[in-house]
């Protein structure tokens, strides 16, 4: 039989149910299946499961939710275990080791970590400390993934992180950053300030202070990449903004100042507007200036159909080009793409 689309226009279904989980309780079977498929495709199933967990859902969905919660629990546990492994490996390192993204949210126990899928361990240290951290990690069993000389040199010369390392026994990856955007990107965030103002947490690691956590999340979402998996990162943004803005009255002002200091105001502002439009994140009224560009970003974020497949091929390609454009100046981009092309690499995310 030919497929009958649900009554819902695709990815909006996922966004709406994340924002207001009670909406899911009125779905028909086809919409439930579409919702679950899209949530998995956007690695938001754990988050959705967490949002729906005590609600009266159909029996088959109950099982799916419980599977997803078991998986998130496992990811949470293993993420914290990796954090601890890194702590032990880096015990003799003097400088602060700042946890980033999923691992930071998990270690700090904030809302964004609930049900979130956590893959690699991301940490940041000062650029001066890279060599020592690298050799300590290698001594503790992490190994290089990329054997390729060009890629290795590329990472070391231009990127904001070391080439990824994988632990030889646990098969888990660690990304060691010294700043939050490629060195060749236009914005030049103040990495030293980020490390200096980081907050120590119980186990000896650090996390970014709230404004920097938002700045990093926005940089990751808008200024470094083609927005693939963007809905998950935007959910992080939604949780962070909702968490932090509730605590202190002048949060928005401090966030704007900090974002400007890091040359990330555009990314932060844009992310906040998108989070507000899709997830209903409360943001100040004078931050809401929707433009044509916002509409394109929103369309890119909502490019998933009810089968979990990507739509809007041209638009996605445009964002793919943009991601490279942001990452490096034109001449360098040409050289880079030529080298990659010669080696037969394909842009297989397209």
């Amino acid at each position: 039989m030919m497929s009958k689309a649900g009554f819902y226009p695709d990815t909006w279904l996922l966004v709406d149910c994340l924002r207001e989980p009670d909406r899911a309780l009125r779905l028909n079977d086809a919409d439930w299946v579409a919702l679950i498929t899209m949530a998995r495709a956007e690695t938001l199933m754990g988050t959705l499961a967490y949002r729906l967990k005590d609600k009266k859902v159909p029996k088959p969905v109950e099982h799916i939710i419980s599977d997803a919660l078991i998986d998130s629990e496992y990811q949470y546990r293993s993420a914290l275990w990796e954090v601890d492994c890194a702590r032990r490996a880096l015990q003799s390192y003097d400088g602060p080791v700042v946890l980033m993204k999923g691992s930071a949210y998990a270690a700090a126990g904030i809302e964004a970590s609930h049900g979130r899928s956590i893959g690699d361990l991301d940490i940041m240290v000062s650029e001066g400390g890279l060599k020592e951290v690298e050799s300590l990690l290698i001594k503790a069993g992490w190994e290089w993934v990329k054997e390729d000389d060009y890629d290795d040199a590329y990472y070391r010369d231009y990127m904001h992180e070391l080439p990824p390392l994988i632990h030889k026994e646990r098969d888990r990856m660690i990304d060691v950053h010294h700043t939050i955007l490629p060195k060749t990107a236009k914005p030049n965030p103040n990495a030293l300030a980020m490390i200096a103002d980081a907050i120590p947490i119980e186990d000896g690691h650090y996390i970014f202070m709230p404004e920097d956590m938002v700045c990093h999340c926005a940089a990751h979402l808008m200024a470094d990449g083609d927005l693939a998996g963007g809905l998950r990162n935007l959910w992080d943004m939604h949780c962070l903004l909702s968490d932090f803005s509730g605590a202190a009255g002048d949060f928005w002002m401090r966030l704007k100042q900090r974002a400007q200091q890091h040359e990330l105001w555009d990314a932060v502002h844009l992310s906040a507007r998108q989070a507000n439009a899709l997830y209903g994140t409360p943001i100040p009224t004078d931050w809401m200036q929707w433009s044509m560009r916002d509409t394109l970003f929103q369309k890119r974020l909502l490019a998933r159909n009810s089968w979990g497949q990507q739509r809007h091929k041209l638009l996605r390609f445009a964002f793919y080009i943009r991601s490279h454009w942001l990452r490096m100046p034109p001449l360098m981009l040409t050289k880079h793409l030529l080298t990659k092309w010669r080696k037969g690499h394909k842009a297989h995310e397209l």
Partner: protein
Amino acid sequence: MHETNIQVGPASFRIGSVWKEVIDQIEMLYASYPKPKLTDYTVTLDAVRPWRRFIRPSAAINGDFMLPDAAPLPLDHGLLGVEMGVNLQMALGWRRQLILHASSVEKDGKSLIMSGESGSGKSTLSAILGHRGWRFMGDEFALINHDNGFAMPYPRMISLKNEAIKTMKKEAPHAQFGPLMKDTPKGDIQHIVPPADAIRKMEQGAKPALLLFPNFGYDAEIREIFPSEVFMRLTQASTNFVGLGETGFNTLKRLVLDVPAFEIAYQNGDEAENMINQLWEQL
């Protein structure tokens, strides 16, 4: 997108394909299975490039749970693609029971579980026994309940490889076979529909009574295996043991401590059947 839904044991799948023939094949083979509306997983077959839907059709397999870099298959092997996609959903997504990469059959309310690498003969043995007085429960995954330790059936289409195709055509000439797929990455493959009672009773579990590790192609031999080794082997044979954490550990521990385990080597189905009957009577 053409689509169909199937239920196999406790799990259900929505299968979509841009090619109608693949869906028709599935609907024919799974004609007697339930078709639930609200499914656990989605698997799709799509053209790798838009024009490859029509010119040298090449099918990319996708699903809710995927491994990176899955190789596309020619459309003639579409059914194998769906099988691989469906297996991946179970292997990576399922948490409701402990999954063992094993075949299983049932007699007198008790189950026999056979675990082994691809080529060990576990799948063919379960298919043969399913036509010789046992109830076929599954040729690929045995699902072990966390609460009572029962093995639950997962009686999907039996996937026969190479010589096993001939063996089963002799064993069950009247069974329903799928199309023969030649020269797939796994050799020649043909599916066979499980016996009717296997499908009818696919919600009926059975307490495990015997664990076997078959080894096809060696001189006949039976060797007992101790729980410590069985445990290690089954952690390797389970796709979700690690992801289940403590629950998985407890489920596997109970199975290993409660159920006697043997390795059997054999040259043909009759030989294996004799050894299995001998061990079964000694229980």
